[in-house]
């Protein structure tokens, strides 16, 4: 099985690099033997299987145009980390993809702290990766759930009714569970 085709006008190295970053944010299982971008650090689909690249490259998101720059930046930082710590980066894949999952995670954490001068670049990339998993925002939510979206189903997000809307007729324990504040006004406000 070959790597799935993904959109966005990115070249192969850029795509792999951004996938590896998304997989660092919400990790998932490998798609095929020898999958390098996905490290296989967690069971079930992660950000990549949840459509991270679709979301990142979406016209609505507004960051598609800077993705090649971000991919290049990630690889520069990976190379610097390897040089500094004497890590050997395997040939054949971009430097960020060649890092171990632990090293990728450490680097992503360093890039997203307030002290890092490029924090403004990396936080949005991380947030979009995150949202691919927990909102499935690249596709309509109903369709994502019907297709078994890894994030929404992994979170136990309840399915909608037949009309595509959510309703929860059972919603309350229906019991008085605390004493209200003694100074509550007749309208139920604080005094």
């Amino acid at each position: 099985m070959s790597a799935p085709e993904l959109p966005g006008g990115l070249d192969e190295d850029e795509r792999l690099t951004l996938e590896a970053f998304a997989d660092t944010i919400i990790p998932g299982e490998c798609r095929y033997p020898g999958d390098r971008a996905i490290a296989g650090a967690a069971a079930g689909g992660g950000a990549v299987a949840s459509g991270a690249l679709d979301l990142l490259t979406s016209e609505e998101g507004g960051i598609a145009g800077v993705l090649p720059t971000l991919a290049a930046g990630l690889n520069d930082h990976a190379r610097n980390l390897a040089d500094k710590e004497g890590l050997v980066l395997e040939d054949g894949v971009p430097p960020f993809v060649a890092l171990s999952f632990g090293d990728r995670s450490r680097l992503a954490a360093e890039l997203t702290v307030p002290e890092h001068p490029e924090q403004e670049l990396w936080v949005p990339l991380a947030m979009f990766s995150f949202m691919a998993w927990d909102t499935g925002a690249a596709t309509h939510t109903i369709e994502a759930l019907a297709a078994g979206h890894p994030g929404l189903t992994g979170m136990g997000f309840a399915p909608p009714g037949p009309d595509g809307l959510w309703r929860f007729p059972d919603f309350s324990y229906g019991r008085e569970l605390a004493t209200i504040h003694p100074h509550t006004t007749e309208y139920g406000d604080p005094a």
Partner: protein
Amino acid sequence: MSMDSTDVVVIGSGFGGAIPAYRLAAGGARVTVLERGPWLTAADFDHDFKFGGPATRAFEFTLGEGMNVLGGNCVGGGSVVYFAATPRAPGYTFERQGSLGRRMWPRAIDRTALDPYYDMVCESLPVTRQDWNDVTYAGGLFAAACDHAGRTANPVPAAIDRDLCTNCNWMMSGCRFDAKRSLLLNYLPAAVDHGATIRALHEVQRITRTEGGYRVHYNTVDEVDYRVVTGSGTIDCRLVVVAAGTVATPVILQRSEEDLGEMPYAVGRYFSGNGERLNTAVVDEGKVRELFGLSRPDGRAYEAYQIGKGPVTATWDKLDGSLPEFSRHSLEQLYFPPGFGTILAQVAGTDGPSSWFGVDKKEMLRRWQSWMTVFIMSEDDNEGVFGPPPETGNADRVSQQMLSRGTLSYRPTANTRAGWARADADVRDILERDGLATVMPWSDDVIGAYTVHPLASCRIGDDPGTSALDDRNELRGHPGIFVTDGSAVPGALTVNPALTISALAERAVPGIVEAARARGVPVRYVTEPPARRRSTSGFREPV
């Protein structure tokens, strides 16, 4: 380029704009409301997280330096996307001094003085007192935990029609069922019925002076890609009501300074995030049963984070005027949808390189239905300051919709931080007791602080040095410009501010009417509540 004239231009259609728009139109004035967001009604409010859906169309998330603000961006403003929790502000908040060493609020305003205006808003929306049968599983569990910790807990008053509510918890994307009593069901349609015009996708840039009043300059923006300007125009008027929201009102005034002359020092200063902060708890389902004997009809103890209508219970024990300032807060149970509500939540006790992403975070997310979010509203130090205005709008837009980067900077003082730390400890004391849950505050490191209730960037007061508006909401030094949105509220309220913003806007109306009459506008002050609608269906922009 379009050029028009009217009696009063209202900038913004949220609480601060809709209320004066209705009362002035009902009183006989010609009113035009300019709203930069789209005009949406219930049929548009799909249950959908997809980019480009209501979850991104109706919102603006404005990134700043150390402070990030989530607000409404549509006809009806915050009322369309908020959670409709509408408590009145406790009496002591009006006596607050902050770090000023003097009362922040004008002497003329305290809780007693504002109560008649609170009453008007409660009748108009309307607001409903909630009881225990309205309290959701999450709210009930929070109340039980409060009780177990020796605290009180209250169902929170809400502008929700309980007969129509389905507890779907999609209300941040607008209410599909018209159960949320947003401004689309009362003040705004009533304003239109009295002849007011609402123009959506009109983003005001600045105000200039004319011989007889003011000229309001706007751009029109594309309905899908808000970054695209599709046209521009002006409207001449006698009087301007600025209610563009706390993160836009000061920017419009800053940009107007070149023509109008110097703005009061407090325009774009003293911003408050209402002392807001969030904690996420992950609940032990077995403890819910063991400690409180709670269970749902299907046998589960809780696992109900997704079910409900935002915040329904709060503990108000620390809303105590005898406590020193910066140590008072309310804690409110809350739902926040995935995305906004999950990214900054931290994993308790992780030894990974990050507390907000990675393997452990994914495991935490797998227990999402056992989450509970607790919303802290405390007293901050009004430390937010706006930088010079961007070229257009209030911020540079990043995405087609929803995401922009503004000029607000906020460095929390020791007072603010100490208040947050006390409130965090309070949350832990309630929810970690006897192993009920593990609790962590949201990360401060990723984007800094955040608020859904921005306040005070153009505030009311008695002291010209520290307030932009006099006690009638008129902009100092610029007669005929009134500010009536959250930016006028002088400081954190320790509760949800929508009702106080609205009451303050109601209170400002008689003064605006008087100012309009002095400028030859034939208008009278109308006190009747707006006619209420049951449905937003048909409340549309005229073609």
